[in-house]
């Protein structure tokens, strides 16, 4: 094996091994568990960054072997994988720190962190999957590893929500499985290819390819929370805050969106999908989801529910960008994969801080929280500005490329959608900012805890501030060569030749 292959193996092992060891640890081994978690996360980040640098220099990272006869298992890191892998491993590191602080003193931590590590291992698998079958394997595994995290608290309400999550995810997975097998039978190996691999079959298999597309998208669409498959997401909000952050920004929803990207760009190919008239309906669903999610978010008083519906809406920006085709729109969609992750994880960290420090869960209880938690709420404000798409935050960069891309493709009406979405985002986020900063605190906080020097536990505060800073910097320095935007430009230029 070459060293490149070893890098891939170690990327997996860096979270798999700590995860397995943590399962065996006793509950009291707090320090060892934290050490394993953090060292694994840091090691993984270093390895991923090494890989990214080498991909930039033109090296290839690939492992391929036959799992069964005719079932190829391929792990391959292209620039798109690198984007998702970097996002996941970066956010995993901050989420781990946050989770350690958040779950301090709560029961079953060994089990929690064990699954937590498995979850990221699987997510990396999704990122590095080199063909649709490998993708499928990790995609199904993701459901199984995230379910224990969602139901971690184990109350009856939580179990109900967990069951809904499982039903949605397994049904989606089953449909996805059917579609993948069908496609495999029809066209042979499904290795991802820059320009898609279905162009030769376009004429002969028109109808089956259309149906398979619908099945594939509804399979991954469950995880990407496309309306009408979004019902599980607000339910899953009963999970602890770090898990919500993980679901929304790092693993599950992102995996769904990433799946849509892979299917459209690397399996079907933009041109083929366009000629099969598959993209406009997909765009239509994305637009509907964007507006629907925002409208539903308006009516929520529970902060996490509002954030969940906001995710439903925001993740569809990615789908929208991909479905429009054209350089600008695809860039907007791809870069939003990263930007949405950063912004949403910031907001969920803030929600977690509020719950842990003040016992506040509802927006109506947040009056004057800015005075008590200035740094957290500052981060929240940055995240909100990003979500609305105000410059210079990350969200604006995505919106800008989506808008330019829409005009490039002569789809001027998308501008109206972006405008509506911006206004709706402002309508459900700005009142929170107002409540937090300009209203006076009324009565005592529901369940306040004192953390001494800092406004809250430093392990809760640090990740929040880090991601907020990233939201600001990825936007403000979008023109620099280290920004996600620069990497997305590279992907679009080198891989898709657009």
């Amino acid at each position, binding site marked *: 094996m070459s060293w490149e292959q070893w890098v891939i193996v170690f990327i997996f092992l860096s979270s798999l091994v700590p995860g397995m060891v943590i399962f065996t640890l006793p509950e009291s081994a707090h320090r060892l568990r934290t050490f394993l978690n953090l060292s694994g996360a840091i090691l993984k980040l270093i390895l991923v960054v090494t890989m990214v640098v080498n991909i930039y220099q033109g090296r290839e990272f690939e492992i391929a072997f036959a799992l069964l006869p005719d079932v190829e298992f391929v792990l391959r890191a292209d620039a798109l994988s690198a984007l998702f892998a970097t996002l996941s491993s970066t956010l995993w590191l901050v989420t781990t720190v946050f989770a350690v602080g958040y779950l301090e003193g709560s029961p079953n931590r060994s089990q929690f962190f064990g699954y937590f590590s498995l979850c990221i291992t699987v997510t990396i698998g999704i990122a590095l999957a080199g063909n649709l079958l490998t993708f499928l394997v990790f995609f199904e595994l993701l459901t199984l590893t995230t379910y224990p995290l969602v139901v971690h608290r184990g109350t009856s309400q939580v179990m109900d929500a967990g069951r809904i999550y499982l*039903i949605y995810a397994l049904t989606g997975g089953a449909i996805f499985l059917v579609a993948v097998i069908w496609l495999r039978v029809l066209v042979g190996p499904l290795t991802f290819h820059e320009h898609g691999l279905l162009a030769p079959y376009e004429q002969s298999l028109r109808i089956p390819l259309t149906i398979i597309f619908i099945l594939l998208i509804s399979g991954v669409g469950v995880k990407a929370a496309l309306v009408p498959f979004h019902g599980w997401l607000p339910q899953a909000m009963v999970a602890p805050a770090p898990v919500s952050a993980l679901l929304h920004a790092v693993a599950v929803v992102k995996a769904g969106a990433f799946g849509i990207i892979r299917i459209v760009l690397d399996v079907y190919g933009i041109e083929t999908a366009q000629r099969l008239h598959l993209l406009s309906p997909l765009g239509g669903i994305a637009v509907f989801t964007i507006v629907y999610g925002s409208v539903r978010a308006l009516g929520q008083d529970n902060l996490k529910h509002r954030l969940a519906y906001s995710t439903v809406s925001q993740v569809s920006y990615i789908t929208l960008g991909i479905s429009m085709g054209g350089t600008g729109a695809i860039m907007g969609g791809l870069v939003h994969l990263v930007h949405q992750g950063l912004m949403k994880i910031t907001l969920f960290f803030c929600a977690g801080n509020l719950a842990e420090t003040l016992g506040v869960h509802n927006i109506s209880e947040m009056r004057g929280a800015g005075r008590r938690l200035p740094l957290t709420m500052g981060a929240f404000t940055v995240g909100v500005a990003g979500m609305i798409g105000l410059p210079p935050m990350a969200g604006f960069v995505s919106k800008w490329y989506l808008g330019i891309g829409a005009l490039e493709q002569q789809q001027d009406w998308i*501008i109206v959608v972006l405008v509506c979405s911006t206004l709706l985002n402002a309508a459900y986020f700005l009142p929170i900012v107002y409540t937090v900063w300009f209203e006076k605190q009324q009565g005592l906080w529901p369940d306040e805890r004192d953390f001494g020097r800092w406004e809250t536990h430093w392990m809760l505060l640090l990740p929040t501030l880090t991601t907020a800073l990233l939201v600001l910097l990825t936007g403000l320095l979008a023109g*620099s060569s280290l920004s996600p935007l620069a990497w997305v430009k590279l992907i679009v230029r080198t891989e898709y030749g657009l």
Partner: protein
Amino acid sequence: MMQAHHVWGDQLLIVLLSMVPGLPLVMAFCLLYSPLRRFSLKLAPWTALTAVLASLLIHSEINLEVSWFFMGGRMGLDTTGRTFLLFTGLIWLISGLFGKEYLDGKGANSTSHNFYFFYLIAMCGNFGLIIAQEILGFYLFFGLMSFAAYGLIVHNKSDEAWRAGRIYIILVMISEVLLISALFLLVSKSESMQLSDVGKVIPSNITFLLIFLGFGIKAGALPFHFWLPLAHPVAPAPASAVLSGAMIKAGLLGWLRFLPLGQASLLPEWWGYLFVIMGMLAAFYAVFVGILQENPKTILAYSSISQMGLMTTIVGCGLLVPGNRSLVVGAVTIYALQHGLAKAALFLGTGMVYHVRGRCHKPSWWFWMGLTIPCLALSGLPLTGGFLAKQGFKELVYFVPPVTAQWLSILLPLAAGGTALLLCYFYLKIKLLAEEQCDAVGFYGLWWIVMLLMALGLPWIWPLETVIDRSLPTMGEVAGALGPLFIGVLIGLFWGLRLWKRTRYNIPAGDIVVLFSCFNGQWHGKSSLLFISKFQNLLKVGVKRYLPLSIEKIYMAVKHFENLMKRWTVVGSCYAVLLCILLLMLTYFQ
């Protein structure tokens, strides 16, 4: 990095230019950190000095790329930018210094760092948009300024302030989305982000309308002017001064930067007429509504709307004249310069009357003398900046199509008379108010006098893009200017002193906002105009009762649907049906 010469002095100037928006921003964040608070509160207003220095020291046109900044930034100073930076900087500087004493005197010391935080951020935005040379930078700083101004408006935390703030922030959001749509369309047409390129392409009709409305909201153009009379009375005096003097001029600058001025032959005629007509309408409408107001600051807000209307008209002329771009820009710039300084002086003066400090005595005679100066200047008294600005406007009118020119030559003296009337009315109102309240003119009076001097002197000595005739006026010109002024003052005196029986008509501040007020239940205008209240009732019944009801119904239906979808039987059968349909399709088509 830099286009010009790599000389020592130039490098220093570049540092200075970056500090213009940078320093206020840094200072704002220093204010948040409590150990540095006292120190930075002292320095806060002085950060505006960088803008004044930059505009005085930078003579050559600087234009440098800051490639790392936000998808490729570019900053620089051109002649227009220099003038805008100068008067904007002066207004921010003097109002800030005034405000320090003013807020201390109000006993609001404990919250003055809040005020200065927003003040500095808005200042950063205002300076930044002037030196930005590409559209995204412009948009960024424009947004920064707009959002930060919210904090200034609601500073007093009264019910009126919250209401004004709410309406303001809604308009800001609308303006933001209108502008971003305009930018999308402009960039996809010009394929360049540089302001110098964008100003040259001919936008489509929709883009043009988006630019008109998007910047019009900030500039107080009809029909989105109503936030001004709501926001000004509730904001502290220095905030009103910068709002009216500096920030609304940003909308004007936006028009100058984004519209293809002086290319009349390539543009549809109605563009120019839209600006001219809306501008003239605003100029007269605001006078009409303004003289029905009681609060002096509201009257000043209406005066600002009226004056901005005149500037809108000048921009409209710019869309009607072929060539002569520099003449247009020059006319707008000198108008903005003199109005900004004079209006800021008026607002600060109003603040001095309002201001109650421990000891109580009436404003002295020099205060009332001083207060007449900006009033007369804005009304166009010869030898003042207002007169110069009106001369510049008149020169421009020669170049517009004859019919328009004819109309304008009739309307402009009338508008000048209207201004005189409104400001005379303001003067009487504030005099009456001072009789009731008492006041102490503190140290900040000094800063007010500085502002007065600037308003008087600067229009005469500041070099402008075009040569506006600044020689002594002829007798004919003097007579032409004094006539409307005299008549306006006369009517104003009659009206203000109630020498004839006043009707009971009283339009609430923010005039047409009563039409929207039914959307929020907390406030109803004290409108005695019957048709307005009728219309309001109609809307209230229509919108307030039925709209939420129907929305509620839809909402319930959606919720019900989602709950249904949660049941696994339902989801499962949906999937099964979907699969069946697809399989049927397959067999059918093959």
